[in-house]
């Protein structure tokens, strides 16, 4: 529907509303009831969001009262003693997501560029739908593959190699367990690549053809066209895709829980087992031993919620920026 239609519609509807209000002031009106019903359902979305935030905040109060800021700075998590410090989980979540996003971004953007700018249309389309298909595979199946296929490979091939050749670095010290930070980074990377790729692809498709034609007309090679015309135009959209991927990565639960080793420790070595915020909730919440324990897990959930909300809102604004740019007629 174009803008004109919409305006006309609004004029008609608002006129209708006035008419209706005068005709049936205070009386029965199907339209008014219908409006109230749809409004009720629509408002429930806001209500749910408030319920989630407030509910989790309220449930976190016992832990907040007991530990205050020490909850975030403490590294000791002991359910028996009733001492809870969430730092190892926060560390594990941030490190695993950031490393995964750093590794995933060039691969995903490269693939999106290959699909939109280089590959013949049919091949590009085939790769795009394959990527889309794989984005739909649930987390628990990535975890199953990770635990039964990837971990043995890491343990027997990759990690011994890293220890032998790069063992002098603090990042590759320790025994090759298979499970650990490296495994988590790899599985998160594999899972978020399809998401970043498909959003980046959508962003690149909004680049006006005239923009690329101008570069080609100046004698630019394909790569120069990409660098001069495509990437600058899509920059904020691609950044949005990456930030959205980060939001996914940090909330990723099942696959990470299955491969990270679930040990609350802060270590520089990628080979050591670690733990993340969603993983500790997944593992401990159903069997929380005390009210304080479940409250501490709720507070971890709250921290996770706040982090993902901030990340997602940032991403939305970045991607909306592109949509507006596109609507404004393709000016940079």
């Amino acid at each position: 529907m174009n803008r004109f239609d919409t305006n006309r519609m609004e004029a008609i509807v608002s006129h209708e509303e006035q008419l209706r209000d005068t005709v049936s002031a205070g009386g029965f009106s199907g339209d008014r009831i219908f409006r109230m019903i749809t409004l009720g359902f629509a408002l429930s979305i806001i209500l749910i969001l408030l319920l989630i935030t407030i509910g989790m905040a309220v449930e976190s109060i016992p832990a907040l009262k007991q530990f205050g800021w020490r909850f975030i700075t403490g590294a000791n998590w002991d359910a028996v003693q009733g001492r809870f410090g969430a730092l190892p989980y926060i560390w594990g979540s941030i490190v695993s997501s950031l490393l995964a996003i750093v590794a995933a971004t060039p691969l995903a953007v490269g693939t999106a560029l290959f699909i939109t700018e280089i590959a013949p249309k049919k091949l590009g389309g085939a790769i795009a739908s394959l990527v889309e298909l794989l984005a739909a595979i649930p987390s628990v199946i990535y975890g199953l593959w990770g635990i039964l296929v990837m971990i043995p490979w890491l343990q027997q091939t990759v990690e011994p190699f890293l220890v032998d050749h790069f063992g002098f670095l603090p990042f590759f010290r320790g025994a090759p367990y298979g499970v650990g930070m490296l495994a988590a980074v790899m599985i998160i990377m594999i899972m978020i690549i399809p998401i970043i790729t498909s959003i980046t692809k959508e962003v690149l498709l909004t680049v006006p053809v005239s923009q690329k034609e101008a570069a080609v007309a100046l004698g630019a090679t394909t790569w120069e066209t990409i660098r001069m015309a495509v990437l600058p135009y899509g920059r904020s959209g691609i950044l949005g895709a990456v930030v959205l991927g980060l939001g996914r990565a940090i909330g990723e639960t099942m696959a990470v829980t299955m491969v990270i080793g679930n040990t609350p420790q802060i270590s520089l070595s990628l080979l050591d087992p670690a733990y993340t915020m969603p993983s500790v909730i997944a593992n401990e919440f159903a069997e929380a031993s005390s009210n304080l324990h479940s409250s501490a897990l709720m507070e971890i959930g709250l921290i996770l919620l706040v982090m993902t909300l901030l990340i997602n809102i940032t991403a939305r604004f970045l991607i909306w920026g592109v949509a507006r740019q596109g609507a404004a007629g393709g000016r940079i």
Partner: protein
Amino acid sequence: MNGMVARSLKNGVMMLLMGTATLLVLTPLVLIFVHIVREGAGSINLDFFTNIPNPPGESGGGMANGLVGSAVILFMASLIGIPTGIFGALYLSEYEGHRLAQVIRFSADVLAGVPSIITGLVAYTLIVVPMHGFSAVAGAVALGLIIIPIVLRTTEEQLKMVPGTLREASLALGVPFWRTTLQVTLRSALKGIITGILLSIARVAGETAPLLFTALGNQFWSSKLTEPMAALPLQIFNFAISPYEDWHRLAWAGALVLVVIMFGISLVARFFGRERSMG
């Protein structure tokens, strides 16, 4: 001339890098797919669809309770998520332009980004605690919360594609606005809406984290909605992290069945979508 050679060399290198990136991206994804099919296909038999899991050490057994449990939980989740999504979308598209609509749209986007394990925590607080126990209903609420924003946004997109002239024609005939909306606008967009609904169900069918402390899972058949209930993704998780070969085999079979069901639903959805664009 040298400049030209350097430029095309650079061009060639960058093209090669992008091609390599694509290969690197596709390799693990294709490997996962191959493993699911190869390992899963060998373990699927009639038992899988008719039996409940055997205790560890006994080979055979199936995931029938998980399949039925997933279907029951998904059905209840749809009852929560679909009406809320559709009626919310009707408000957004038919009364658009109000500031409130913007706020709701934004909330839906934010809600869609909330990690699924958090919806599990919320369903735990809202349902499990007051009902004093894990239950299938709680699992359905957790999944329903995930369905709502997806259905809302896809439905709104579809409703906006209905031409305004159609609404005007109906209004001009004297049909009240609410009947126009339900019988003309909604009906014209129905196929696209069904596509969106099916895709949202396919998406939550594999959700595991929200069920961990709501539906909890069950080794046996459960007859009540107020009791813990088995679900296919939960069984895949529990069997994958177990040390038993037999259970690993069941997990692969479960993964294959889950993927086939999800892709099946998406295929049906796409079929609906295509039929619409042709008509």
